């Protein structure tokens, strides 16, 4: 009995070892973008700021901390196991409010016990959870899909490709990318010559402004809306401004992100806040060109995913085609 046990465990150890070494061999041979390789891919390498990471192909248990990545996976038709706890899921991600998905922490802070307990094959983090990538990497291979604000669209496309490769849906990823690009091109064609725009965020009754290169800079950098003020410095939560600043900047378009609404707490609404003599004197107000953006999409997904980008670009296309 004891001999049998010994030999049996010995055999299984050997076979695991052999499989592992085959895996490693596969990983060594497979280059990041070597699509169409004859070898069956077991994993592929993604270069990240903290070094290279081996991402398994067709992983069974996927945990996602980043909302944009979650939308990408949804669009790719992939199954995920765990999602973060949020007060209210953005419309495009409503399906994940179901109890079928395990809550694995907040957008910022993983619940490590739950994460570990799920024994994930891969974890997808980024943006708000980027700081936790090193810690998460100790549990499972972790993708850091933080959007590069200087190149938001390139980032989004790159991330979609990586996720497509991961879940074995490369063709679908390419299709989604083409659709996103078409949306953007259509909007770009409409914004030229339609005047300048200013992006503000309202938060607890206070205002901040965002310009080109910021987290909402794609309005100017990608969608082609001329910035009403080119000098707004890039800062995580924008630059604190007064209503006078809006009047002085006097944009043709005012884009408003109501942060309180974005996180599912609609208090004194942004429109009430902005209904004052100073804002009402701007060109944007007089032309009725104050656009209340879909806060949850802009704030939580940053237009870095197929669903949110389509919805948000469509809203802007509608606004600009009426102007």
């Amino acid at each position, binding site marked *: 009995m004891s001999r049998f046990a010994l030999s049996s465990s010995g055999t299984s150890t050997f076979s695991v070892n052999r499989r592992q070494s085959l895996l490693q061999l596969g990983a060594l041979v497979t280059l990041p973008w070597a699509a169409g390789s004859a070898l069956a891919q077991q994993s592929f390498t993604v270069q990240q700021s903290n070094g290279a990471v081996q991402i398994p192909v067709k992983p069974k248990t996927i945990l996602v901390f980043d909302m944009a990545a979650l939308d990408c996976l949804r669009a790719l038709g992939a199954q995920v196991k765990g999602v973060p706890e949020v007060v209210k899921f953005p419309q495009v991600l409503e399906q994940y409010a179901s109890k079928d998905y395990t809550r694995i922490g907040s957008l910022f802070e993983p619940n490590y016990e739950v994460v570990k307990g799920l024994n994930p094959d891969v974890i997808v983090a980024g943006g708000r959870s980027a700081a936790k990538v090193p810690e998460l990497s100790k549990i499972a291979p972790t993708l850091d899909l933080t959007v590069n604000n200087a190149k938001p669209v390139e980032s989004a496309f790159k991330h979609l490709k990586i996720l497509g490769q991961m879940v074995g849906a490369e063709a679908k990823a390419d299709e989604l990318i083409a659709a996103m690009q078409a949306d953007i091109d259509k909007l770009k064609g409409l914004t030229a010559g339609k005047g300048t725009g200013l992006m503000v965020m309202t938060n607890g*009754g206070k205002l901040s402004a965002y310009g080109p290169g910021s987290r909402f800079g794609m309005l100017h950098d990608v969608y082609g809306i001329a910035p009403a003020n080119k000098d707004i410095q890039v800062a995580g939560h924008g630059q604190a401004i007064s*209503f006078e600043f809006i009047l002085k900047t006097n944009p043709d378009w005012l884009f408003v992100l109501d942060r*309180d609404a974005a*996180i599912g*707490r609609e208090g004194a609404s942004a429109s009430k806040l902005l209904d*004052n*003599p100073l804002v009402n004197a701007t060109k944007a107000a007089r032309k009725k060109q104050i656009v209340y953006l879909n806060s949850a999409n802009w704030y939580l997904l940053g237009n870095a995913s197929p669903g949110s980008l389509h919805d948000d670009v469509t809203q802007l296309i509608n606004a600009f085609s009426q102007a």
Partner: protein
Amino acid sequence: MRPLAFALPAVAALAVLAFISLLVGVSDVSVATIVRLFSHNEDDLATQVLVASRVPRTLALLLAGSAMAVAGLLMQMLARNHYVEPSTMGTAESAGMGMLVGVLLWPDMPVFAKMGLAAVFALAGTALFLAVLSRIRLRAALIVPLVGLVLSGVIESATTFIAYRFDLMQTARSWMTADFSAIVQGRYELLWLSLVVTVVAMVAADRFTVAGMGQDFATNLGLNYKRLVAQGVAVVSVVTASVIVTVGIIPFVGLIVPNLVRLVVGDNVRKSVLWVAWAGALMALVCDLIGRLVIAPYEVPIGTVMGVIGSAMFLALLLARRKRMGG
């Protein structure tokens, strides 16, 4: 000290600063605009900015600054300690917790209800502070503010924890640091209430002076000490709540201003309360002007400016006192 000889220049200085405050901002408002406003009613853009934004902001600064300073003075008499103020003894932090609870339970709460809730929390927090204080035997000068700081730390941590759990950290931060940038017509009027309360404090000044001498002394003079303390706490709580709901927590004014005035005028509340109100308004105006100027056209919140200037002044005050006492 002859009050009248000082009163005229003091009022003049405040008026000049308030006038400058009207002129500083992103849009162009000139002296001519202000003159025009008083001479004949013109409805140009600059006049609109003046009426809708500058005047409300300047008034809000005057009201909030003086109210917070007077609240600090009262609290110092009631706690019989010169180093307490609403933001170092749990009043302001409790009011903040009330705001958070309001946002969680009833996000569309009208502003008066919000203030009421904040005031109730502020009352409870202040009462807790005084209750803890009455159980402490060793009332050395620095023990009292330390107890207050510990208590406000605990309350603030609890608030932060709730805010963190419900993803409201940044919303909470918006009233943790005072900021006058969003003050326009229609968004500051609640502060007039704090003026009413400040006037009440002025009327009752003598009683608070007596309260500052302790329970036994006050009772011997025929005052209902407990009722007086309750009234004082109510005044401080309502003032703090109205300021926090409108602009956020303004630190240090209530601590530094009464102490500076005390150095000159002494402990008599009736003599000092007007000076405290004056200096509080002055300090608020100066700090807000600095915040508006350093990174124009953007703004540094007054809470931040006040934190920097206030802590420096507080240190200077402590060191000056030690020197005077020969330490």
